[in-house]
């Protein structure tokens, strides 16, 4: 699977394009990591009864969606709180 790739042979425009692709992939990977983390948190909160089916029932689906949205609310709330603290009392 490993190939010897002579990166010095890349043209400037291809280098630029690869750079962009790399940036996008890194961003995608970040998002996926966040989704993995969120899914873990929400799985523990929402899947509380015995597992009898391979699909989400209505209440589990709703719980999963609420869980993600409330987690985002929490994150935004903390950020805005921090922001006002940084501004200090004189702000």
């Amino acid at each position, binding site marked *: 699977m490993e*190939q010897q790739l002579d990166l010095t042979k890349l043209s400037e425009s*291809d280098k630029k394009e690869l750079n962009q692709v790399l940036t996008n992939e890194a961003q995608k*990977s970040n998002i996926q990591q966040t989704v993995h983390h*969120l899914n873990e948190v929400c799985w523990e909160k929402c899947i509380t009864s015995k597992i009898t*089916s391979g*699909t*989400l029932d209505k209440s589990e689906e709703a719980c999963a969606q609420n869980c993600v949205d409330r987690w985002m609310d929490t994150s935004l709330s903390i950020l805005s709180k921090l922001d006002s603290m940084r501004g200090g009392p004189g702000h």
Partner: protein
Amino acid sequence: MSSLFGSGSAAPIQTSEEIKAAVMRQLQQEAAMSNARSLIGKINKHCFKACVPTPGTSLSAKENTCLSSCMEKYIAMWNTTSKTYITRVGVETKRLGGQDAAAIASMATGMPEGGGGIMG
């Protein structure tokens, strides 16, 4: 496709275009593999917890059935989580001025299509 598995006799890649394509392919493969590995690890952790409360000398038929449902359920939930999260990030980005709309759009393509897609 056979050159992908790099038998030593394959002709060395020459042009910039070919090198770029090979790097991109490798990058995407490694990213997909890393994502799948994370998912498998988490399924293992959570489904073991949910389906095998007291480990016996072997997995019972019931435990096996539970594991298979659990795996499907975990992936179903992953897809819901991903969709909800990406939608929300899009909403927030727009609210904050939408500078990063292109980046958000590129995230959406990272979603596995359906349950089986993530393993592909």
